[in-house]
C-alpha cells in the first residue's frame, strides 16, 4: 500500500468520498468504514495509536452530540415511535426512522473523517506534488497546493509557539474569562498575520530568485514515478465501485442486501 503511486492514493480518497455520499444504507456505510480502516492499516497509518486515538475519540463524541440533537430536532414519522412530546412549538419525535437517518448521517461523517486521516497521514507533501504532476496539473497550481498544505503544518506550529511564549510570560489561556480569551486570541492572530506576510515575502522572493515563471509549461522533474499495473488495477476497481454505487443509488438498492440476495 505504501508503494502505491501517489495518484492511486489520492484516487482512493476522492473516489471513496464520492461513494460515501452515494451510499444511503447504514449497512453499506458500515462495510465501507471497515474497508477504509483496512486500507488505512495497509498504508501503515497508526490509526489506533495513542495520538490518533485521542483525535478519533474526540470526533466520535462531538459527532455523537450532533447525532443526539439531530434525533431531538428532526421529527420523522416511522413504524416504531420511541418517544413523542411537545414543548411549546417544539415537536420531539424519536422514531426508528429518525434514528436510522441520524445513524446514516453519523456514519457518513465518520467515514469521511477516516478518509481524511488516510489523506493527511498516508499522503505526504511529496506524494501530493508527484501525484498532481503525473496527471499534468500545471506546475504553478501544484506548487500552490503544496504550499497550502505546508502552510497548514507551519502555522499549527507557529500557533503553538506563540501561545506557549505568551503563557511563559504569565498570560492565562485555560482559566481566562471569555473577553480575556478573545483578547489573547487577537494577540495571537496579529502575530500570525504578521508572520504570514513575512513568510510570504521570503517564499515569494525565493521562488522568484529561482526564476520560476508564473506560467511555466514544460518544467522537467528530477523524480519519476511510473504508474504500475497494480495502480491501474486499483484505479479501475475504484471507478467500477463508483459507477456501481451510482447505479445502486439510482435504483435505490443497498450494496449489502444485493450481495446477500446474490449469495
Amino acid at each position, binding site marked *: 500500500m505504501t508503494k502505491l503511486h501517489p495518484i492511486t492514493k489520492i484516487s482512493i480518497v476522492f473516489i471513496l468520498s464520492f461513494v460515501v455520499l452515494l451510499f444511503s444504507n447504514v449497512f453499506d456505510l458500515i462495510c465501507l468504514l471497515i474497508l477504509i480502516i483496512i486500507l488505512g492499516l495497509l498504508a501503515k497509518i497508526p490509526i489506533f495509536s495513542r495520538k490518533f486515538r485521542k483525535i478519533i475519540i474526540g470526533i466520535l463524541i462531538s459527532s455523537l452530540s450532533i447525532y443526539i440533537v439531530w434525533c431531538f*430536532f428532526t421529527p420523522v414519522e416511522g413504524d416504531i415511535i420511541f418517544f413523542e412530546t411537545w414543548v411549546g412549538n417544539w415537536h420531539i419525535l424519536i422514531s426508528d426512522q429518525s434514528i436510522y437517518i441520524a445513524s446514516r448521517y453519523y456514519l457518513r461523517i465518520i467515514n*469521511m473523517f477516516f478518509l481524511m486521516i488516510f489523506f493527511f497521514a498516508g499522503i505526504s507533501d511529496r506524494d501530493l506534488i508527484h501525484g498532481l504532476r503525473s496527471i499534468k496539473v500545471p506546475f504553478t497550481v501544484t506548487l500552490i497546493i503544496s504550499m497550502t498544505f505546508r502552510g497548514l503544518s507551519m502555522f499549527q506550529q507557529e500557533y503553538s509557539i506563540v501561545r506557549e511564549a505568551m503563557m511563559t510570560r504569565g498570560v492565562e489561556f485555560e482559566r481566562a474569562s471569555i473577553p480575556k480569551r478573545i483578547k489573547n486570541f487577537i494577540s495571537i492572530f496579529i502575530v500570525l498575520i504578521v508572520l504570514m506576510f513575512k513568510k510570504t515575502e521570503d517564499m515569494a522572493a525565493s521562488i522568484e530568485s529561482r526564476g520560476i515563471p508564473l506560467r511555466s509549461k514544460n518544467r522537467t522533474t528530477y523524480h519519476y514515478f511510473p504508474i504500475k499495473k497494480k495502480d491501474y488495477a486499483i484505479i479501475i476497481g475504484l471507478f467500477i465501485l463508483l459507477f456501481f454505487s451510482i447505479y445502486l443509488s439510482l435504483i435505490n438498492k443497498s450494496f449489502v442486501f444485493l450481495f446477500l440476495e446474490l449469495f
Partner: protein
Amino acid sequence: MNNSSSGMEEVRIGVTWRHLVVTALATGVSAILAIYAVILAPVAPFPGVSGLYLAAAVYVPLSLWLGMWGCFAGYFSCVILGFVSGFGPWSFVWAMADFIEGFVPLLAFRIFKADVDIGANLKRKKEMYILLAILVINLIVSAIATAIGGLEVLWLITLIVAVVLIIFMYIINPSRSWLLYVIFGIFGAAITSALWGIWGINVFIGEPSAEAYWIGVIGWFAGDLIVLSAIATPMMVSLTGKIKETSIFVDKWFS
C-alpha cells in the same frame, strides 16, 4: 500605464508570485483557525458550524487587504474544513459560504470606491467600540426574534435600534469606510454566509426541521458577528495602514 503630471510613469504590477504565495499561506492560517473553531465550539446538529468561528476574523480583513486572493483563501480553507468535517466533495459547494463572507465587503468597498483603512482618522475609538458591541448584541437579539417567530414587535424594535446606532456611529465618526465596514463587513458578511452555509448543509444532509435550520443560521450568524466585531475590527484598525505599505496589498480586484 498612466502618465502623471510630473512626467513619471506609474507602473501597475500585475499578478505576481506574492499574491499566489499569500493565498496559499492565508489558506493554511484560516484552515487551522477554522478547524480549531469547529472543534472547540460546534453548533449541533450542523457539522462544520461553530458558535465562535475564529477564521471569519481573518476572511474579511484578508479580502479587503488582498482582494480576490483573500476571498480564495477563505474558500479553500473552508474546503479543507469541509473535508475534515465530513462533507467530502460537497465541500466545494458549501465552501462558497466563506467565499461570500469575504466577497460581500470587498464588493461593497470596490463599488463605493472607499478606502479600506477604516482606522485612518478614526475619532473617539472607545465610544465607537462600545456602540459596535451594543449593535452586535442587538443584531443577535434580532436574529433570535426572527427565528423564533411571533416576536415581530421585538424584531421591529431591534431593527430601529440598529439603524439608530449606525446613524449615531456616523455622527460620532463621519467615515464612509467605517460605515461600509459595519454594514457589509460585519452584518452583510455574517448573514449572507450563514444563509448559504446552512443551505449547503441542508442540501447535504436532507431536510432538517425549520427549528434546526434556524438554530444553525443563528449559531453561524451570531458566531460570525462576535468574531468579526471583536477580532476582525481591531485587526483592520491596527494592521491595514501597515499592510497598505507592503507589495502584497491589492487595491483593485487581483493586483
